[in-house]
């Protein structure tokens, strides 16, 4: 039941924030904050209580489950389940949600109630995606997070917001529909072989598939997740959407929506189509490496702060793709850790970019420079997150990328070496970001207020989280390991062959 509460609190909070937002914007902010805080607290309690023996069944390492029939004629049920992987991502969702709400405290002044409604409903969709085991329900949440997100972009976004919102929507929807076709086909095959429809991923695990069919279906899923992740030829919506979105939108997009793609790959593509995905692994890993390098090079070439950060996401998510298709537990651990660390570090960078834009009314780095002397606190914090982003040892991102690289090195040394080059490129663009904005002469003579206490508070929390993840990531790995070992067992026969 707690799983349902996670979602219901967000939905109800959203409606409440909208209705009271007309009278007092502060209440709307308070309600959004409260709803997310309650959810985060519930999640943390769940984490700390940690049921002693995690149930290891054929169907997963689930901690908590709930199932209600929804559309019996088609075997569709309202089926949520949570294991270590989902738990971490759900916690990340609440955490970044809180950060996003606080970060838009002064940025959003119009239609505050409706804004927080959209934020909370997007987050509810994201949580649903991380929890759904019934694929129909999964698709339902997958689309549910889309609509309010598009609203966030095109109501509160910047100059080119309508174009960005529609592009984002169409890319995601087109790829999502291909996934829907794959989902429906699987349920149809289930009907053909067992005589009843089912959308339950756990039951699909036992479904024998012809290799060609499996490959097509896998591609249907892969495209949807690849657009979200994003994988390079399908990434073009991302720089636009991230750049045009308001700060909270960028944080949620980069920190959470991209992770839904990675989560989908780990949760569904790998276990449902092990053979097909294994065959496809080299292609996927190459795409990952291309993404790492391409994202890094393009990030270096940007003059728009938010666009630069957006392209670093493309680069960092390449590591996730590489890790997932490296097909071993070490790389998977790295990918999961990367998802969390990238969420926090990029989220923070977007909050800083938003803060810059709010003060300077421009995102163009050519107009910036020498800001360190006027906003020293912001400079220091930005330097920290730029270091995190380039993978400085001692911070979470380093551990994550290191694990991914170790994991993938035994599978494909060449691609791993190429990916390592991406780390060097990351240093270049991260340093350029700092140099162009905070160092050098203050040509424009900027004099603007520094980060407020409120901003510093959320920055401090995010810094603490990254340092913790960098120095002692073991609790995180312990939490996710049962889920990953289960994954390993599902695909094991192939894993043995590969070695």
């Amino acid at each position, binding site marked *: 039941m707690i799983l349902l509460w996670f979602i219901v609190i967000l939905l109800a909070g959203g409606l409440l924030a909208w209705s009271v937002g007309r009278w007092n914007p502060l209440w709307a902010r308070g309600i959004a904050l409260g709803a997310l805080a309650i959810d985060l607290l519930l999640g943390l309690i769940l984490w700390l209580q940690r049921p002693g023996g995690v149930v290891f069944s054929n169907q997963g390492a689930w901690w908590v489950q709930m199932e209600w029939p929804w*559309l019996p004629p088609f075997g569709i049920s309202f089926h949520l389940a949570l294991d270590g992987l989902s738990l971490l991502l759900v916690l990340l969702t609440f955490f970044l949600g809180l950060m996003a709400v606080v970060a838009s405290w002064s940025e959003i002044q*119009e239609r505050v109630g409706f804004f927080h409604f959209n934020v909370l409903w997007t987050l509810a969709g994201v949580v649903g995606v991380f929890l759904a085991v019934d694929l*129909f329900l999964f698709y339902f949440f997958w689309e549910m997070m889309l609509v309010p997100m598009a609203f966030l972009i*095109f109501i509160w976004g910047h100059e080119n917001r309508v174009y960005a919102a529609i592009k984002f*929507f169409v890319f995601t929807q087109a790829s999502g529909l291909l996934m*829907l076709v794959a989902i*429906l086909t699987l349920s149809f095959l289930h009907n053909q072989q067992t005589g009843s429809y089912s959308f339950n991923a756990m039951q699909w695990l036992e479904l024998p598939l012809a290799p060609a069919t499996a490959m097509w279906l896998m591609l249907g899923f892969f495209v949807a997740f690849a657009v979200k992740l994003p994988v390079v030829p399908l990434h073009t919506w991302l720089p636009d959407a991230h750049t045009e979105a308001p700060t909270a939108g960028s944080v949620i997009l980069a920190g959470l929506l991209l992770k839904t793609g990675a989560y989908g790959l780990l949760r569904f593509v790998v276990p449902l189509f092990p053979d097909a995905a294994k065959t496809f692994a080299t292609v996927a890993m190459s795409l990952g490496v291309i993404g790492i390098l391409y994202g890094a090079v393009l990030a270096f070439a940007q003059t728009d702060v938010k666009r630069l950060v957006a392209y670093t996401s493309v680069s960092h998510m390449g590591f996730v793709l590489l890790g997932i298709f490296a097909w071993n537990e070490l790389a998977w651990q790295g990918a999961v850790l990367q998802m969390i660390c990238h969420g926090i570090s990029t989220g923070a960078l977007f909050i800083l970019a938003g803060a810059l834009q709010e003060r300077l009314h421009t995102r163009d780095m050519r107009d910036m420079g020498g800001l360190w002397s006027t906003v020293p606190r912001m400079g220091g914090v930005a330097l920290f997150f730029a270091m995190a982003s380039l993978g400085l040892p001692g911070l979470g991102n380093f551990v994550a990328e290191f694990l991914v690289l170790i994991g993938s090195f035994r599978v494909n040394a060449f691609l791993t070496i190429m990916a390592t080059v991406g780390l060097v490129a990351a240093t270049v663009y991260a340093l350029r970001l700092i140099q162009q904005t905070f160092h050098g002469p203050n040509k424009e003579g900027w004099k603007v207020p520094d980060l407020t206490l409120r901003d510093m508070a959320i920055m401090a929390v995010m810094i603490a989280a990254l340092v913790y993840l960098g120095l002692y990531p073991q609790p995180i790995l312990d939490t996710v390991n049962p889920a990953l070992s289960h994954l390993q067992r599902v695909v094991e026969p192939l894993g043995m062959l590969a070695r």
Partner: protein
Amino acid sequence: MAVDLLAALPLIALAATAIVALLVVAFRRNHLITAVVTLLGHGAAFASLAVAATVIPRQITALLIIDGYALFYMALLLVASFVVSVLAYGYLKGRADPVEEFYILQVLATLGAVVLVVSRHFVSLFLGLELLSVALYALIAYLRTDDRPLEAGLKYLLLAGASSAFLLFGVALLYAELGTMEFDRMAQSLAVGENIRRVFVLAGLAMTITGIGFKLAVVPFHMWTPDVYEGAPAPVTAFVATVSKGAVVALLLRYFAQAGAYPYSSLILVFSLIAGVSMVVGNLLALLQSNVKRVLAYSSIAHLGYVLVAFVASGSQGAEAVTFYLIAYIVTTLGAFGVVTVVSEKDRDADSIEVYRGLFWRRPGLAMIFTATLLSLAGIPLTAGFLGKVYVLLAGIHSALWPLVILLVLTSALGLVYYLRIVVAMYAALPQLETARHRPPVPSSSLAGNIILVTLAIGLVWLGVYPAPIIRAIRLTVASLL
């Protein structure tokens, strides 16, 4: 005989409504009274469905068949027509011209639609189709002081006349070859007859398809759609889009199921092509429009293409999908045109996208309902349109129609763009100048109209979230057909 009358009670009730309304108008011209008589007539016809249900299945002469399938579709069409009447009341209220005849014509058109649903014979098919068409000519051109309705009415008259001629010629060919005009007898003659010239049968079937395709407005019989949608008064457009098309789809399903036309693979190929081209052309051309009514016109072409995908899929899966999609489409389209009706001013329908700019900040309820209907047309979850699309895709996958399935997916992603454009406009910030100037209260809204819109929106979400009861009813319905 008495049982026949019981079974035909819904038809009789509708016919009586038309006559009573005519008499009322003759004695006392009053908009409200006529509208109430019309609505009560719809109610009586709906109630008499329950009476008819006690004696089904019942064949009445060689022409009509009242079965579960017919009753289900009649209920659907009566509800849709009822909604149109309510919308029309707000729309027509306060106009200078006489408005009472509108309702009489509308009841006649609905009667024609209902006859289509129950016909099992080409004569009743033709009767129903003409009753529907002739009433529609007048309805489309009802606001005769304006040029655009007149142009639309004339266009519809000419093209509908031509398509009726095709239909008649096709019927004549079929009759010449098979010696019968009853659907199920045709199937028998086709099954046993050795000395049948297939060419003539095929030509006959193809020509009847032309007549039906015109009413469905699928490519290449779609030319009239945008002009008629744009020119006709908004409630009439809603009627054309829902009742008229719904009745013809119901007829098509029965015709193909009973006349045994499914084995004709060339016909199925034709329908596959029509479905594919309709999806592509409808969605592509909608992209180029800036007029909301024209956008909805082209989108309806695409939606009928989706329906035909399910139709081509055939079997009980296909028929279920057609029926569900049609229900979702009718609820959604009524909602969309309902909003257009309510927003319309007396001198011009609200068809420019500018009218909708910033609607959310002026009239949030109306804008949310319109958003819901547009998202449903686009097939986003939580709405009826989404489940309809899932149903159609499932039927397509079931019959392994991969090209059509992929085409459906790609074109509906394309379709998002034009729906979102309208949505975006509604949520766009108003220019400061315009917010300062108070707009007059929207004239076409009425309490009844608002209640209907809210009901439609609730129905839309309900169908999208918990369609299990409807699905059960559809399964029973389809079982009575096949």
